[in-house]
C-alpha cells in the first residue's frame, strides 16, 4: 500500500497524581485543581503509532473523549508528532462507564474517517480497567489484541506482532483493521520536539459532540452506562509496624524472626 496507514490512537487525560479527592455528595471525582496529563500508558500507544508511520507512512490521528480541557492532551500528543487531534466532548457523554465510553469512541472513530489500526494504552492510571479497547473492538466488529509488546511488520493488509501474557509471549498475525492495546515493552515514548510544539500550538482540534453523532442521549454517558458507582471510600492504609536499627546481623535476625512469626518460612 503506497498511501500508508491510517492510524488512530485513543488517549485519555488523567490526573497527574492518583491522590485525588471525591465529592461525597455526587460520588464524582473532583478533577479541578489537579494537574492533568496524558495517561502514561497512552504515551506508549502514541509511540507505537509514530513508529508505524515512520516505517509505513500514513497519518496518526489522536482522539480523546473528555471535558473540553482534554484538548491539551491532544495538543501534547501532536507535540510528540501526531498529525491531528479530535476531541470527543459533550455534556451527555459525562459519567460514562467502559461500555458507554467504548461505544462513544467507536462511533466517533467511524465518523472521523477510515482507519487501519486503532492503538490504545494497556489501561489508564485512574480507572485502571483496561476494558475500553476490547469493548470498542466489539462495537466496531474488529479483532482486538491486548498486551502487545512488539509490532513486527505490517504487510498485505496484515499485521504481525507479539503479545505478552502471564505465561509467555505469543507471535500473532491479524488482518487490518484491528485494535491493539500496547504495553510498555513497545519502547520508550519520545519527548515533544520544538517543531512539534509549534505544530501543536497552531493545530486546529476538531470537536465531535452528540450533534455530529446523533445518538440517543439515553445510550450515552451516565444514562447509557450499565454500571453505577454506589459508594466510594478510602481503603485502610497498610498498618505501619516497627522501624528498627542495628548491626547488619541484628537486622537480618529481626527480619528472619518476622518471616518465622508470620509463617512465611
Amino acid at each position, binding site marked *: 500500500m503506497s498511501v500508508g496507514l491510517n492510524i488512530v490512537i485513543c488517549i485519555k487525560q488523567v490526573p497527574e*497524581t492518583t491522590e485525588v479527592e471525591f465529592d461525597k455528595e455526587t460520588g464524582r471525582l473532583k478533577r479541578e485543581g489537579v494537574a492533568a496529563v496524558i495517561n502514561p500508558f497512552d504515551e506508549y500507544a502514541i509511540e507505537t503509532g509514530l513508529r508505524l508511520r515512520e516505517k509505513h507512512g500514513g497519518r496518526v490521528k489522536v482522539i480523546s473523549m473528555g471535558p473540553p480541557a482534554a484538548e491539551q492532551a491532544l495538543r501534547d500528543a501532536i507535540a510528540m508528532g501526531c498529525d491531528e487531534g479530535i476531541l470527543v466532548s459533550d455534556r451527555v457523554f459525562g459519567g460514562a462507564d467502559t461500555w458507554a465510553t467504548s461505544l462513544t469512541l467507536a462511533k466517533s472513530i467511524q465518523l472521523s474517517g477510515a482507519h487501519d489500526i486503532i492503538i490504545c494504552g494497556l489501561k489508564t*492510571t485512574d480507572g485502571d480497567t483496561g476494558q475500553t479497547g476490547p469493548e470498542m473492538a466489539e462495537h466496531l466488529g474488529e479483532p482486538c489484541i*491486548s498486551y502487545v509488546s512488539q509490532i513486527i511488520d505490517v504487510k498485505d493488509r496484515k499485521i504481525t506482532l507479539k503479545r505478552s501474557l*502471564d505465561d509467555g509471549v505469543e507471535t500473532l498475525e491479524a488482518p487490518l483493521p484491528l485494535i491493539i492495546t500496547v504495553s510498555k515493552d513497545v519502547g520508550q515514548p519520545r519527548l515533544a520536539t520544538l517543531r512539534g510544539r509549534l505544530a501543536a500550538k497552531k493545530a486546529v482540534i476538531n470537536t465531535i459532540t452528540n450533534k455530529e453523532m446523533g445518538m*440517543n442521549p439515553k445510550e450515552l454517558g451516565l444514562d447509557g452506562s450499565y454500571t453505577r458507582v454506589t459508594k466510594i471510600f478510602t481503603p485502610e492504609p497498610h498498618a505501619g509496624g516497627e*522501624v528498627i536499627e542495628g548491626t547488619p546481623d541484628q537486622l*537480618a535476625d529481626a527480619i528472619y524472626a518476622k518471616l518465622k512469626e*508470620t509463617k512465611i518460612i
Partner: protein
Amino acid sequence: MSKPVNVGDACTGCGVCVSACPFGAITIVGDKAQIGDACRVCGACEPVCPVKAITMKKVEGPQSFSDWRGVLVYAEQREGKVHPVAYELLGRGRELAETLGEPVYAIVIGSGLAKAAEELVKRGADKVLTYDHSSLATYRDDPYSQILTEAVKELKPSIFLIGATSIGRALGPRVAAKLRTGLTADCTSLDIDPEIKVLLQTRPAYGGNIMATIYTQNSRPQMATVRYKVMTEAKIDPAHKGEIVKKSVDPSKLQDRVKILAFEAAKEQVSIVDADIVVSGGKGLGEPKGFDLIQRLATALGGAVGASRPTVDEGWIEYRHQVGLSGRTVRPKLYLACGISGAVQHQAGMKTSDVIIAINKDREAPICRISTLAAVGDLYEVVPRLIEKIKEQKGSGVP
C-alpha cells in the same frame, strides 16, 4: 423483551437505513429491513426511513431479571489444568449463591477437560459446562469469547465471575460487550446487597487510593473480573455432587481472525503477579548487578523478583518485573522491598500485600511507614546475611 428498534409492516426494503446505520447492523432480508445483533440503538435509522417504518422502543423503568439465576464462574485453564483463581471464585461464588438461594455453575473451555470438570464439581460447582475441542486447547480471543457469550445467553446466570488474569481481563470485556452488560474490572471484594439482592462489586481505582463499590443496573448478568489471591479458595469436597454437561462446539464459533504463529513460554517459573513472595529492588541497589543479589534472596525464599519504576526506566531489569501504578499490581503474602523508597506510585502496586518488609538506609523513606517491619541499614550487608540464615534453616532440615 422485544427489540429496542422495530421495523414495521410499512417497510418497503428500500435500503436507505442500511447505509445510514453506522454499525452495519441492518440487512435487507426478503423485502424487509432486519436489525441485527450489531445494533447499538443509536437511532440513526429512525429519521432516515422514508415511510416511517422504523420505531425506537424506549427502554425505561425497572426491569425484571427473575429469569437470570445462579452464579457462573469462568474456569480458566492451561493444558487442562484449572487456574487456581477459579477455585477462589467458586469459594466466594458459593457464599454469594447461598445468600441468594441459587446454584453455582462453572464453565471451562479447552481440550481434554474431563479431569478439570471433575475437580470443579469437587470444588463446589453444581453444574459444569465443558466446551472440549482440540482447536480450543489454548486461549484464543475470538472463539473463546464467542463460545462464552453463547453459553451465558443460554444459561442466564445472574452473576458471572472471571479471574482478573491477563487472559481474563482480555476476555471479560469482549464477552461483556457482546452480551451488552456491565463489567467491573479487577474486583477485590464481592457482596450481595441485603435489600435489593444485587451484586456489590468493590474495586480499587486511582492506584488503590480509593475504593469504589459498583453495581450493574438494567442488564444481566452482573459481570466482574476478580483479582487473584483475594478470595479464599473453595476446599475440595469429594462428596459434593454436581452435573457435568459436555456441550457440543458449534464449528462456526471456532473461527479466529487472529492466527497464532508462535508461542514462547516465559523463563520465570512464577510471574510476580502469581508469586506468594515478591522480593523487589530499587534505585538503592546502585547498579544493575544488584538484581543478582535480589534474585538470590528471591530464590532462597522461593519467590519472584520485582522492581521499582526507576530501575526499569534505567534498563536494569525488564518491564515485566515492574511493580506499581505503571507496572503490575501484586498482592503476595510477603513483599520484601530492598532499596526502594516507596513513592505513592510504587505503593499503589504493592500496599495490599499481607506482610511488607523494607530494607532501606533512610528511616524517613515512605516505604518504612507502611511496612510491617522496616530495617534501617545497608541492603548489601543485610541481604547476604539473611540469605545465609534462610539457607542454614533449610540445610538443618528443621521444618
